[in-house]
């Protein structure tokens, strides 16, 4: 299971406007990326 100090697994998902975003894209422009996995959208 992925933990601190491990290499993050890259992924590509789409926004609600259907724009694809990859985690690795963030590395070019941001010092850090904070991933917030939501429970549900209720």
């Amino acid at each position, binding site marked *: 299971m992925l933990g*601190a100090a491990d290499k*993050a697994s890259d992924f590509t*998902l789409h926004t*609600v406007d259907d724009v694809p975003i990859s985690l690795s894209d963030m590395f070019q422009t941001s010092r850090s990326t*904070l991933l917030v*996995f939501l*429970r549900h959208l*209720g």
Partner: protein
Amino acid sequence: MCQDKDELDRLNVQVLLIGFGAVSSARRWLEQTCDDFPLLLDPEREVYRLYGLEESWLRSWNLRTLRLYIRLLASGRKWRGIQGKSNQLGGNFIVDSDGIIRLAYRSREATDRPAVDDLLDLLRDLEKDDSGS
């Protein structure tokens, strides 16, 4: 988290919200809660599994969860119903620009999240590390 956007911008942090509901639900959620950050949709929850996030009915629905919902409703938040699997637990991860995970926090139950102040402290530490290197 939304109220800390200026500080997150100053720290050069990109926040990615990840959810698994339908597009219409996601749009409504953004309108009613926080549209400062991109919301990515993972309908099959493949990335949830990739990052080891758990499913548990028992830990998703307990007294603390019910108290939280009552508090939110009492504060004026609208009930939008449950969108998607309500036994999916969430989590927070911080990844640095080398692609290394600096924080892996998997919720043990529905209301279990790291404090925003703790996340900001860790992000400030990363900024200091970067400045020092």
